[in-house]
């Protein structure tokens, strides 16, 4: 029995909406064999039969312009789908029918979805889909992907067509020539395809070139200077909105360790359980749960906001505004949103990269987002800096950090860009700016919720693992820092860490900054003042002692010189962002290899920077 369906369509055709609506959470993401292209498979059950759905990568054509197009064409050619469901934008029918013209050469069974009928209707475009169906010889279904009511008809149609499939009865006549790959031949073929499209659409819809009037909103958003400012402002507002949305969730998450810490610890201690297990169950597990809840809260908020910004058509405009600037880094203009989001939270920025077109671009954007200091860093750096430096000098530190962000971004794109986004795959922007849509909230919220739940499930494992690892190192039976493995290793390798300008105490602070930036002050408090354990401080458990910045400042300045302090701040800021960002990157990229590579790059980079800063600063300070 034939049950394999593939979805084919251009960017903005609503393909992923249909895919998500059909399969819900029954999805699997992997990579195409040997390629850095994401492979999305899912399934659904209809009338007792299980159908698989493959979401083919979105592209404008099938002529092999990119890995995505080659894979898509091969997939269809090899007959790996029993039925191809092609999506076109009904409001831009002539242009988006190009995909149908490209598909025609492959001679496989298909159905056509005229998506965004609501947009077409709002532009007073009428489409005679029955006439089109007769001309093409395959079923044509008018559709609104973001509304749930049409899906029964779609499932019904797909089931019927899998039983008794139809192929296109009309295909474009392509010019015959010797030299099929030449630029001239390509142009002639495309012209022939559009001629065929015109013929198919004759009488189906009116497509006359009307004078285009920019909307008032576009007049502002697309202007070179004001538009960029408006984009900045919108993204900032979007980030704030995401924060407001995820705040309740994070609040609930934060209550988990506070509520569970003591009861679990008391219970287990009364049962005479070994203190090791007590600390695992009372500190590590509730906190892991908290981290994962907080993470998925963020992912939900960001996906909701990004889903909204993408659907209304804002993202395409931001991409247009910043394409020139970011192409220098080998990135698409769209990367501006995740990068700016990174100033708030690296996790948010990382999952914001889902708007990028392909895996390589996505991975590179994540690597670049890591360079952006998140809000937590901006809360600890001024505190530490002001212990050692005057306010003016602190300001200089902040400016220095911002300047280095640009250096680091360039370095990241130089080191990883060549492999992730090869030179020949870097082509300038040629993209459509879709008309503004009204958002379909129900659909956006559903997708964001799915994504957040998915991250939660997957992250539990990674975060637990890394937390346990940190626990092994920082556990101290007596509560005294000197009894932890971290202390023993730290002091043993101090001669080495000194090269990087860090003593064992600041080195511990550096290590904890890889865990969570919020943990840094607490850990410094534990190692300098001797208040509380590193473990409690890192996990901010109910046992951790509140940090008194003045006391910490005195204790730190006694032991640490200005040069070391400066080196330490640089090392912390440009270390890997945090366990949760690491885990999100792994979960979003599906590549352990690349996540590890980028993590190694950041750790080494932070230590080298710290080394350079220390030795130069030691000459002057």
């Amino acid at each position, binding site marked *: 029995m034939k049950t394999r369906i593939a979805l084919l369509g251009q960017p903005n055709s609503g393909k992923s909406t249909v895919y998500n609506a059909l399969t819900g959470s029954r999805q699997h993401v992997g990579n195409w064999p040997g390629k850095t292209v994401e492979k999305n498979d899912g399934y659904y059950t209809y009338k007792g039969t299980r159908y698989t759905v493959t979401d083919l990568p979105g592209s*404008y*054509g099938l*002529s*092999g*312009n990119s890995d995505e197009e080659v894979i898509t064409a091969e997939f269809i050619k090899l007959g790996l789908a029993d039925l191809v469901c092609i999506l076109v934008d009904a*409001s*831009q*029918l*002539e*242009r988006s029918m*190009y995909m149908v013209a*490209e598909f025609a050469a492959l001679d496989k069974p298909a159905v056509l979805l005229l998506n965004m009928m609501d947009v077409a209707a709002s532009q007073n475009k009428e489409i005679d889909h029955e006439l089109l169906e007769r001309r093409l010889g395959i079923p044509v279904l008018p559709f609104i992907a973001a509304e749930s009511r049409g899906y029964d008809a779609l499932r019904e149609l797909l089931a019927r067509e899998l039983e008794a499939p139809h192929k296109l009865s009309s295909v474009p006549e392509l010019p015959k020539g010797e030299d099929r*790959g*030449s*630029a001239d*031949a*390509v*142009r002639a073929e*495309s*012209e022939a395809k*559009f001629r065929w499209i015109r013929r198919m659409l004759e009488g189906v819809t009116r*497509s006359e*070139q009307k*004078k*285009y009037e*920019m909307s008032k909103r576009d007049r502002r958003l*697309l*202007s*070179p200077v004001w538009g960029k400012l408006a984009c900045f402002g919108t993204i900032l507002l979007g980030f704030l909105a995401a924060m407001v949305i995820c705040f309740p969730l994070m609040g609930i998450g934060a209550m988990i360790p506070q509520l569970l810490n003591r009861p679990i610890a008391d219970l287990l201690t009364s049962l005479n359980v070994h203190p090791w297990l007590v600390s695992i169950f009372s500190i590590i597990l509730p906190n892991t749960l908290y981290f994962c809840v907080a993470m998925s809260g963020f992912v939900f908020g960001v996906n909701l906001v990004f889903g909204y910004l993408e659907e209304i058509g804002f993202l395409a405009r931001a991409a*247009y*505004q910043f*394409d*020139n600037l970011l*192409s220098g880094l080998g990135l698409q203009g769209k990367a501006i949103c995740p990068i700016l989001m990174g100033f708030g939270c690296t996790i948010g920025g990382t999952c914001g990269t889902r708007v990028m077109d392909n895996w390589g671009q996505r991975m590179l954007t994540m690597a670049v987002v890591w360079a952006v200091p998140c809000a937590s860093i901006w809360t600890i750096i001024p505190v530490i800096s002001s212990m050692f430096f005057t306010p003016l000098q602190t300001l200089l530190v902040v400016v220095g950090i911002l300047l280095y962000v640009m250096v680091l971004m360039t370095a990241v794109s130089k080191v990883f860009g060549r492999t992730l986004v090869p030179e020949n795959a870097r*082509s*300038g*922007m*040629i*993209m*459509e*700016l*879709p*008309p503004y849509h009204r958002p379909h909230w129900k659909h956006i919220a559903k997708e964001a919720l799915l994504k957040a739940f998915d991250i939660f499930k997957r992250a539990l494992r990674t975060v637990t693992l890394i937390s346990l690892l940190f626990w092994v190192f920082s556990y101290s039976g007596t509560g005294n820092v000197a009894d932890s493995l971290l202390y023993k290793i730290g002091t043993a390798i101090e001669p080495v860490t000194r090269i990087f300008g860090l003593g064992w105490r600041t080195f511990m602070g550096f290590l904890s900054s890889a865990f969570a930036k919020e943990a840094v002050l607490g850990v410094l408090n534990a190692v300098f003042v001797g208040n509380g354990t590193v473990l409690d401080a890192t996990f901010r458990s109910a046992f951790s002692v509140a940090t008194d910045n003045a006391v910490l400042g005195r204790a730190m300045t006694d032991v640490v010189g200005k040069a070391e302090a400066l080196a330490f701040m640089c090392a912390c800021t440009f270390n890997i962002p945090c366990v949760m960002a690491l885990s999100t990157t792994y979960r979003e990229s599906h590549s352990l290899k690349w996540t590890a590579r980028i993590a190694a790059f950041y750790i080494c980079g932070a230590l080298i920077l710290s080394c350079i800063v220390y030795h130069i600063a030691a000459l002057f300070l």
Partner: protein
Amino acid sequence: MKLTDTKPDSCGVIRRIGGDAHLAKRITAIGLTEGTEFQTVRNDRKMPVLIYLRETLIAVNRTDAERIEVETA
């Protein structure tokens, strides 16, 4: 004239698309073929050229837009 030399709000027809096969594939796939009518919507310095064509607003980066010969009405 080149697409990059067109004035905002002017209408015209695409005459010749230069460049290699790769550019030809990319640019024709989005709907820019020879003989297509278009309208320039925005043409700002250091920004992609915005054109309206086949009922679609399309941004074309300047390097590639340089290679497109057009005839304006």
